[in-house]
């Protein structure tokens, strides 16, 4: 093993790395996946069905006692963040790829919807995405399984929104609603983000890596924290240097080609740490663009109650968390900002009721009010697209090292005027729909206390090597056999949850790399 040279070494095993590895191994490419965390058995290791009162501090740990994994903010474990995601799977539209052309802000992608459409098709069939075909211009339909029914609260909000000419649709998730040959259907236990114990919800370890193991072309190095991508003086990536998480011993994996896919911020961090004679400011950073254009989603939220559901008998409608989604509809409206937003809509009962704090008063009346509102709770979770700005970037903090001796990676995001306008409009829209449905507003989030989600940007994709880090095939402009395959390559974020697009990009990159091996370019 020591002297083996793999065809490709992929750093990270989540949506990007896992998909890339699976697809390449199936093509007969010899793949090494290097993952910082331990292997995790979804059937036995997650605490999926625990309830808060099983724990004194009411915090349910992700892993069962004695099981390792997902113990740090870096979500280390084979499968990466796909183990704990909420599985919302949305296609980007033409307008998302060409946002700069449409409204003059941010950057266009060098690819367009037709380039990615066949890969969206392929991924949706592979992973199983449920959803309704809605025929929307801004949210292309796909190869869907039927969605689970909307909850009663969703229907009430949908009816209200329709009166305001705003669409509310079934959400689209990579969670099976029908059993497949390999995986059972969702059983609606309501705790998706604790890790699905039957893999009805997609995760890369069970769906992409496990089958690829059977090809004999995949080797997974778990518990191996990559600290450097090695580049030769001839400007070729030759492998990675890693630290064994348990023994702390250094090791090296050699390969003809390297792909960095360890989630946006950490991928940028790894490249910034991989300095060499050719790249003194970070690998693939000849443009000076590495770490810039950091564009995570910014979130706002509105909570309240649907009057029609107050004091109704409790039914088990926790479902697979959120069933409804408000897709971007802004292109059809007059507005005073660039880009758009989408809203995840959550209704129904839930095992956590933090909102009870906000119900006014105390005593018998308070207790009654909370109980009556339990079946009527509504939460709008809004996602806005950020326009890249000079204050938002990813940077190494060279004054701080983690327990593995790696520099701390800082991601800083700053909301500006365009974000404020979107923020106000998305909260206004949510409040309007709730009020029009005859609901009570409990709380509205505040712009001055920003919340970000979905790390994106930092290794911008573009056709000009002076203003971008990777090309349309996720290959770095600087090093011809180095790829970056995760959310960091997004030149503009769109308001849509990014994972399906990361997987489609990985599938497209796999085709491209496979072709290059066939043509003996690598």
């Amino acid at each position, binding site marked *: 093993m020591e002297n083996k040279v793999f065809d490709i070494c992929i750093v990270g095993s989540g949506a990007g790395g896992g998909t890339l590895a699976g697809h390449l191994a199936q093509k007969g490419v010899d793949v090494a996946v290097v993952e910082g965390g331990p292997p995790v058995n979804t059937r036995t290791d997650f605490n999926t069905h625990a309830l808060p009162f*099983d724990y004194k501090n009411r915090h349910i740990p992700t892993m069962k006692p004695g099981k390792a994994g997902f113990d740090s903010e870096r979500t280390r474990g084979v499968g990466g963040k796909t183990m704990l*995601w909420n599985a919302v799977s949305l296609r980007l539209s033409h307008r998302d790829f060409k946002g700069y052309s449409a409204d003059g802000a941010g950057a266009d992608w060098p690819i367009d919807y037709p380039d990615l459409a066949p890969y969206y098709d392929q991924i949706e069939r592979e992973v199983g995405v449920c959803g309704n075909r809605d025929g929307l211009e801004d949210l292309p339909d796909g190869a869907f399984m039927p969605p689970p029914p909307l909850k009663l609260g969703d229907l009430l909000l949908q009816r209200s929104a329709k009166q305001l000419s705003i669409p509310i649709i079934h959400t689209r998730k990579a969670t099976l609603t029908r059993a497949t040959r390999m995986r059972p259907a969702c*059983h609606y236990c309501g705790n998706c983000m604790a890790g699905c114990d039957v893999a009805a919800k997609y995760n890369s370890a069970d769906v992409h890596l496990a089958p690829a193991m059977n090809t004999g072309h995949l080797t997974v190095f778990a518990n191996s924290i990559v600290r450097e991508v090695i580049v030769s003086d001839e400007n070729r990536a030759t492998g990675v240097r890693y630290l064994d998480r348990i023994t702390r011993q250094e090791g090296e994996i050699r390969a003809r080609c390297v792909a960095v896919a360890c989630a946006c911020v950490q991928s940028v961090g790894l490249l910034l740490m991989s300095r060499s004679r050719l790249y003194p400011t970070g690998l693939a950073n000849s443009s000076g663009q590495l770490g810039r254009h950091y564009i995570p989603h910014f979130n706002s*939220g509105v909570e309240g109650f649907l009057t029609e559901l107050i004091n109704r008998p409790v*039914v*088990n409608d926790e479902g697979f968390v959120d069933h409804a989604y408000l897709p971007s509809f802004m292109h059809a409206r007059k507005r005073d900002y660039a880009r758009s937003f989408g809203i995840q809509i959550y209704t129904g009962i839930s095992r956590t009721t933090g909102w009870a704090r906000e119900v006014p008063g*105390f005593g018998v009346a308070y207790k009654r009010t909370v109980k009556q509102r*339990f079946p009527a709770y509504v*939460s709008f979770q809004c996602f806005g697209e950020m326009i890249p700005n000079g204050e938002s970037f990813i940077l190494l903090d060279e004054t701080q090292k983690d327990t593995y001796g790696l520099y701390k990676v800082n991601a800083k995001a700053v909301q500006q005027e365009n974000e404020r306008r979107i923020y106000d409009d998305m909260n206004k829209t949510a409040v309007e729909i709730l009020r029009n449905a005859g609901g009570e507003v409990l709380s509205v989030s505040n712009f001055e*206390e920003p919340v970000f989600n979905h790390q994106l940007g930092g290794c911008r994709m573009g056709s000009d090597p002076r203003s971008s880090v990777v090309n349309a095939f996720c290959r770095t402009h600087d090093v011809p056999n180095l790829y970056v395959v995760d959310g960091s390559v997004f030149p503009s974020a769109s308001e849509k949850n990014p994972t399906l697009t990361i997987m489609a990009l990985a599938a497209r990159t796999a085709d491209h790399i496979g072709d290059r091996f066939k043509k003996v370019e690598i």
Partner: protein
Amino acid sequence: METRREALKIIGAVGVTCAFPFSANQLYGQLAHQHQQSPPDAVIEEVPYKPIFFTPTQFQLVSRLADLIIPTTDTPGAVGAGVPSYIDLIVSADPKLRSLFEKGLQRLDVYSGSTFLQLTEAQQVDILTAFSNFLPTFSNAASTSIDKSIEYNDGLFFRAIKNLTADGYYTSRVGLLQELGYNGNSVLAAFPTSTIPEH
């Protein structure tokens, strides 16, 4: 609602990354013990409970306050659900909460003129109502710098103990299952179809 945000900021409970950054996922306990791997607790209620942080008198006072916030009705109240021991656990782990509670509990006695615990229930409710009204709105706080005042701290203390009581109660077996009637976390063959009822 700005009031709430302000209170949260001071107590330090904001900033959770998840699909639902604003909703029910923000509980003090979850944040304070984020990376602890505690095994399931076979018995939540140890009898008698020995407080980690509070003195026996303070613990009595906390228990009384929790029961005033969520009293016994046709289901047990906060004390019956073991909330005081939850509050003790969370407060013990957070320096800001420790100081807020120490001062706040003292202030209750100052207001009582003697000992809060010796007052009648009506008198206790009156004092707690005053505390619950002290937290100014965000705009007031900005214009009058009232946030430095002792009363503002009393308001923060009330918010903290109310939040902890609500968190502790509605995540307890009594609160979640018996009081709210939560019946999820089960295996459904299919998700039931809903229709909007005709009026």
